């Protein structure tokens, strides 16, 4: 989130999904430091392996990684039914 879009190889996606499952478990276990580490790893993977799309590309993403500096509370709120995304539109 907030870092642009990347295109990933199938292999990288597989690895990313594994990290994602662990991150999900970390949220369930309320393990904040583990969550931080995993989100950082996910971002590092995407930046390293991914190919950044140009800014004027308008394709939709298959997956969205939450910001890595989010607290556990914020992450939980983001994933709640109401979500954390503010109503910018009028």
């Amino acid at each position, binding site marked *: 989130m907030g*870092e642009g879009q990347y295109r990933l190889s199938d292999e990288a996606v597989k690895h990313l999904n594994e990290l*994602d499952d662990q991150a*999900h478990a970390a949220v369930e276990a309320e393990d904040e430091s583990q969550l931080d580490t995993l989100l950082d790893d996910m971002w590092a993977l995407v930046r390293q392996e991914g190919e950044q799309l140009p800014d004027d590309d308008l394709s939709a993403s298959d997956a969205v990684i939450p*910001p890595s500096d989010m607290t556990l509370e*914020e992450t939980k709120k983001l994933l709640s039914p109401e979500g954390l995304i*503010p109503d*910018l539109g009028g």
Partner: protein
Amino acid sequence: MGLMSRTSNVVKAWISKLLDRAEDPAVTLDYSYERQRDMLQKVKKGIADVVTAKKRLELQTQKLEVEMPKLDEQARQALSAGREDLARAALERKAFAQQQLQGLDQQIADLQAQQDKLAESEKRLAVKVEAFRSQKETIKAQYSAAEAQVRIGEAATGIGEEMADTGLAIERARDKTEQMQARAAAVDELVDSGTLEDYTSSGTELDRELAQISASQQVDSDLERLKGEVAAGGKQKELEGEKK
């Protein structure tokens, strides 16, 4: 379900709320573009608000850093009056304020990094909205209504993701400045209540005690002076008496 797909769903739900689809793709396109322009303006304003709040915080912490030596001076005053307890109170207050300020400095630095990221996002968003503008003309001219709807959906989702990201980041930065503002205000109040600028009104216990000390010192020294004068005056009379 993993975090990524859940986040993605949240974003998609947000986007679909944003886009009302009309029967005529040309209308959807123009409407969608107008919405995007509005949102871009709101994003710009949101970033500007965060920048303003951050600047205000920077000024406030600078002011507090200037105020800090006053507590030192207060402690010195108390100590020279033999009131170690008061000196300790002033120094404790100073240490606390210093700690809080250091924390704030770090947070302001973090906020600066967030702000830089926001500026990047905003730039990306502006490029996307512009790309949408040129694509929408192509879509209008080249595609059948059904195909056009599909393409609009895709393009608008791409933009919506970026907007959701940026909106979320602005909201978080805003929350952070508010928390920091509250903290800085608390330190501000603490330091203000500890300064000795005003002896007469609304002083703290520390102020009043120091004022009392300083007043009684004045009384003592005046008393000493008067005693001296009186004694000297008496001797003078004695001397005059002896002469007679």
